[in-house]
C-alpha cells in the first residue's frame, strides 16, 4: 500500500515504489544483556539498517526492560513490545509488525529465557536447575509445536533432552508464531540457529522469504564434539533460507564445507563497529602492574583460552611485572585456573570472572595488548572493541576479523611460540603499539555498520 514517507537522506535506493522494507528479525539476545558478540552485532546492524529507513521489529526470547532500542521495535517473545507507550515520537506513529499484547492461547511460563546461545547443554542444565525450584509446572503448551514446526524439531528429540535449550527454542518458536499471526512484513531475518525453527515455520506459514544470518556455527563452538541436533537445526535453517548471510569469508567457507549448500546463496556481510571515545579515567589507574595482557571472552574451547595460558607461561620469564588477565566465564575456566597453578604462574595471572559494561571498558583501557587466540572465530567483534580503546590486538588467523583488520598481529592459534614472541615484542616496544593503534583506528573508520547495512539491504532486495 503506497504511503507518504520522507526517506532519510542516506536511504540508498530511489523511492520509486514508495515501499518501506519491513523486516521481522528474530534474535536471541540484545544489549546490555549479552553473552558474546551476537547481541552487539544485532544492535550495530539494526541501528544502521534503521538509518537507511528500514523498519524492524526484533523479537528476542526475553527482555529485562533496560534495553534501549529507539531505532526499532524490540519485542519480548513472551510479553510483547518493550514499553510501547514511552517510545519516542519518531517511531510512535509507525505501524507495528507484531501484536502488542502478550499472546492469547499460549500459556507462557514463569521461566526466564536463560538461554545463552553459547552455553552447551550441560551448562544450561545447571543453570536451569537453579531456577527449577521456582517453577510450578514446566509444561510445553500443546500448540507450541505447530504442525509445520513438527517437521523441524522432532518432538521425540526435544523430549529426550528435557528442560534444556531445545525446550527454550521450541517455546520461543511457538511464541514468535503467535506474536506474528496476521502480521505483514517483507522478510524474515533470523540470527543464528536458535531462531531458525521459528523463521522456517514463519516462512512456510506466511510465504515470506527467510534470511539466515550466521554469526557462529556449531562447528566453531564445539569443534569435533558438535551437538548433532544443533547442527541439524542449523543445517535445516541454512537449507530452508532463501539467502544466507555469513559474517566472514571464513564462515562462508565453513558453511559450504559443513552443510554442502550452494555458495551462490551465501553473502558475506562483515560486522562493523561504532567508534567510541577512550575513557581516560581508566587509563593506568592505581594498582595495575606495568604491563597487562588481556583475554576477554567466553572461556570455552572455541576461544582458545588454553593457548593463551601456554603462551603466557613462555612470556613471563622474559617480562617481569606482567599481568595476564583472563576475563570471562565458561566451561573451561576451572581447567585454566588449575593449569595456571600447575605452571607456577598464578602470581602473574588474574581471573576476574565475567565482566559487564564499565568493567569491560576499564579492562580494555588498561590492557597493553588484547589477545584473541580463537580456534575458530566466525568474526571476533571484540578485537574491534579493543582497538576502540586504543589497545592493539593479536588475533588468530582462524578468525573472520583478520579478513578486515590489517593493522593487527596475526598468528595461527596453535603456534604458541609465535604468539609469545608477538606478546613479548608488543610489550617491549611502545612504538610498535602506537603505530598499530593509530593505523588500526584509521582502519576502523572504514569498518562502519553503514556499509554492513547496505550489503544487507542488497540481500533483501534480491529476495523481493
Amino acid at each position, binding site marked *: 500500500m503506497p504511503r507518504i514517507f520522507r526517506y532519510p537522506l542516506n536511504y540508498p535506493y530511489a523511492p520509486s515504489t514508495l515501499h518501506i522494507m519491513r523486516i521481522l528479525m528474530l534474535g536471541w539476545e540484545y544489549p546490555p544483556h549479552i553473552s558474546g558478540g551476537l547481541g552487539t552485532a544485532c544492535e550495530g546492524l539494526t541501528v544502521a539498517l534503521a538509518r537507511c529507513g528500514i523498519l524492524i521489529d526484533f523479537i528476542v526470547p526475553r527482555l529485562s526492560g533496560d534495553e534501549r532500542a529507539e531505532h526499532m521495535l524490540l519485542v519480548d517473545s513472551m510479553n510483547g513490545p518493550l514499553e510501547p507507550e514511552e517510545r519516542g515520537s519518531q517511531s510512535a506513529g509507525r505501524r507495528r509488525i507484531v501484536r502488542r499484547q502478550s499472546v492469547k492461547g499460549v500459556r507462557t511460563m514463569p521461566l526466564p529465557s536463560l538461554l545463552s546461545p553459547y552455553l552447551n547443554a550441560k551448562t544450561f542444565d545447571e543453570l536451569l536447575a537453579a531456577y527449577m525450584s521456582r517453577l510450578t509446572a514446566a509444561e510445553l503448551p500443546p500448540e507450541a509445536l505447530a504442525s509445520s514446526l513438527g517437521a523441524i524439531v522432532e518432538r521425540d528429540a526435544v523430549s529426550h533432552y528435557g528442560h534444556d535449550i531445545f525446550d527454550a527454542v521450541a517455546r520461543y518458536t511457538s511464541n514468535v508464531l503467535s506474536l506474528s499471526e496476521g502480521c505483514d512484513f517483507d522478510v524474515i531475518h533470523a540470527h543464528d540457529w536458535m531462531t531458525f525453527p521459528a523463521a522456517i515455520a514463519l516462512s512456510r506459514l506466511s510465504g515470506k522469504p527467510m534470511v539466515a544470518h550466521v554469526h557462529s556455527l556449531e562447528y566453531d563452538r564445539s569443534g569435533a564434539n558438535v551437538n548433532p541436533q544443533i547442527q541439524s537445526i542449523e543445517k535445516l535453517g541454512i537449507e530452508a533460507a532463501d539467502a544466507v548471510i555469513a559474517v566472514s569469508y571464513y564462515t562462508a567457507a565453513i558453511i559450504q564445507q559443513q552443510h554442502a549448500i550452494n555458495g551462490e546463496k551465501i553473502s558475506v556481510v562483515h560486522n562493523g563497529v561504532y567508534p567510541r571515545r577512550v575513557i581516560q579515567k581508566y587509563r593506568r589507574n592505581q594498582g595495575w602492574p*606495568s*604491563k597487562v595482557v588481556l583475554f576477554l571472552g567466553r572461556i570455552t574451547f572455541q576461544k582458545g583460552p588454553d593457548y593463551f595460558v601456554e603462551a603466557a607461561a*613462555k612470556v613471563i620469564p*622474559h*617480562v*617481569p*611485572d606482567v599481568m595476564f588477565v583472563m576475563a570471562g566465564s565458561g566451561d573451561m575456566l576451572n581447567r585454566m585456573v588449575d593449569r595456571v597453578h600447575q605452571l607456577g604462574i598464578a602470581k602473574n595471572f588474574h581471573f576476574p570472572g565475567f565482566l559487564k559494561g564499565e568493567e569491560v571498558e576499564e579492562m580494555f583501557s588498561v590492557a597493553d595488548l588484547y589477545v584473541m587466540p580463537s580456534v575458530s572465530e566466525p568474526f571476533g567483534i571484540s578485537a574491534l572493541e579493543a582497538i576502540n580503546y586504543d589497545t592493539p590486538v593479536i588475533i588468530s588467523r582462524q578468525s573472520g576479523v583478520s579478513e578486515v583488520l*590489517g*593493522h*593487527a*598481529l*596475526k598468528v595461527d592459534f596453535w603456534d604458541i*611460540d*609465535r604468539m*609469545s*614472541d*608477538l606478546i*613479548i*615484542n608488543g*610489550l*617491549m*616496544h*611502545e*612504538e*610498535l603499539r*602506537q*603505530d*598499530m593503534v593509530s*593505523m588500526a583506528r*584509521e*582502519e576502523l573508520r*572504514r569498518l562502519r555498520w553503514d556499509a554492513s547495512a547496505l550489503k544487507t539491504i542488497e540481500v533483501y532486495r534480491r529476495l523481493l
Partner: protein
Amino acid sequence: MSSVVFYFQVHQPFRLRRYSYFESTRNPFYFDDDKNRQILEKVAHKCYLPTNDLILKLIKRGEGRFKVSYSITGVAIEQMRNYCSPALESFVKLAETGCVEFLAETYYHSLASIHDSNEFLQQITLHSDLIHDLFGQKPSVFRNTELIYSDHIGSTVAELGFKGVIAEGADDILGWRSPNFVYSVAGQGNGGRDTRLLLKNYRLSDDVAFRFSNRGWPEFPLTADKFASWIHRISGAGEIVNLFMDYETFGEHQWESTGIFQFLEHLPEAVARHPDWDFCTPSEAIERYSSFAEIPFGRVTSWADVDRDVTAWQGNRMQISALKRIYELGDRVKQSGDEALIDTWRKLLTSDHFYYMCTKWFADGDVHAYFSPFDSPYDAFINYMNVMRDFESRLGVAPLPLADVAQMTA
C-alpha cells in the same frame, strides 16, 4: 644536439629470515640464504641475463652510439657472485664495450647519508673500490640510495670530488624549470668545484617503468616509435632526457610477454632517427652540456612514491626507533675490529629492512600494493628487533630489562 641518458638501478638486499625472539642471544644466522638465492636466480633469469644480452647486442649494433649506465649495489654484486656468477660476468662484458658507465653509491644501499656521515663515506669508498676492481673504471658520478638527495648530501658528494649526482626531478623542487637540462649542486660557493645535478624526467621514466603494460592507460600500447616521438618533441626545449629506472623493469616488473624487450630493442634506432638525438652516459652529459643553474633543494627528496620523500623508510615510530638503535651501534661495531661483525651490521643497514616496516600504503587497505617478505609492517619490525637483540648481545650490549625499556619508551 640532445641526448638520452639511461641509468638502471640494480639492487638486491640480503633479506632476513624469520627470526624468533627465543632464538636471539643464541643464533648468529640472520639471513635467509635460500630465499635470497631463489630471488636472485629468478631475477637473473628473468631480467639481468636477457636484458644484458639485449643491451650488448644493441651496443654492438650501435657501433658506439648506444650507451647506458648502471648503478649496482655491493650487496647485489655479492649475491650475484654467490648465487649466479653468469649474471655478474655479463655485466663485466658490458663494461668491456666502453659504452657503459658504472655509478657510485653506498655499498649496502643504506640510509647512511642521513644517519651517519662517516659510514656514508666509508660505504661509498667500499663501493667505488669494488666497481673499480670488477669493471676497471672508477665511478665519477654518484647516485644515492633511492635517489635520496638534499643540499647537504649534494655538498658532501661534491667534496668527495664527484663530477655529478643523480636526483629526482621533483615538481616542487624544479618549479617552473625543466628536468631536461644539466644543473649544479647548490651552495658550492667559490670553491672552484662544479658538481652537476642530473635530474630524473619522472614522467617519461615512469611511462616505461610503471605504465608500460597498463591497459587502462590511454597511451597503451606504448611503442618505441611513439615513445621516441615524445622525446623528439623536447628538441629545442631541453638538452638531455634522463631516463632512470630499476633494471627489473625489464622482464621482472614488466614481464617479457608485455613486449618490453621488443620496446627496448627498437628504441635506440627510433630515437636516433631524429638527427638531433643520441645517447650518452651521465659523465658524457656533464662534459657535453653546460650547467643551466644551481638548484637548491629545500628538503630531502627521493624517487619513491608520489611524495618523493623519505617517509617510506622513516615515516613511522617503528622505523625511526629501529634506525636510531642500529646506527647507535656503529662506533661499537667498528671498535670491535671484527670484519664479519661489521659486515653483518652493514647488511642490517640496508634500506629495504626499513621499507618493509612502512605503514603508508597499508593504510589504504591495499595490503598487496607493495612487495614485502613479511605479512605486515609490524611483523617486519618485530623480526628486525629480534635480530637486533641478538646482534647487540654479540656486541656485548646487555639486553635491557624490559621494565627499563618500557620506561624509556613511555
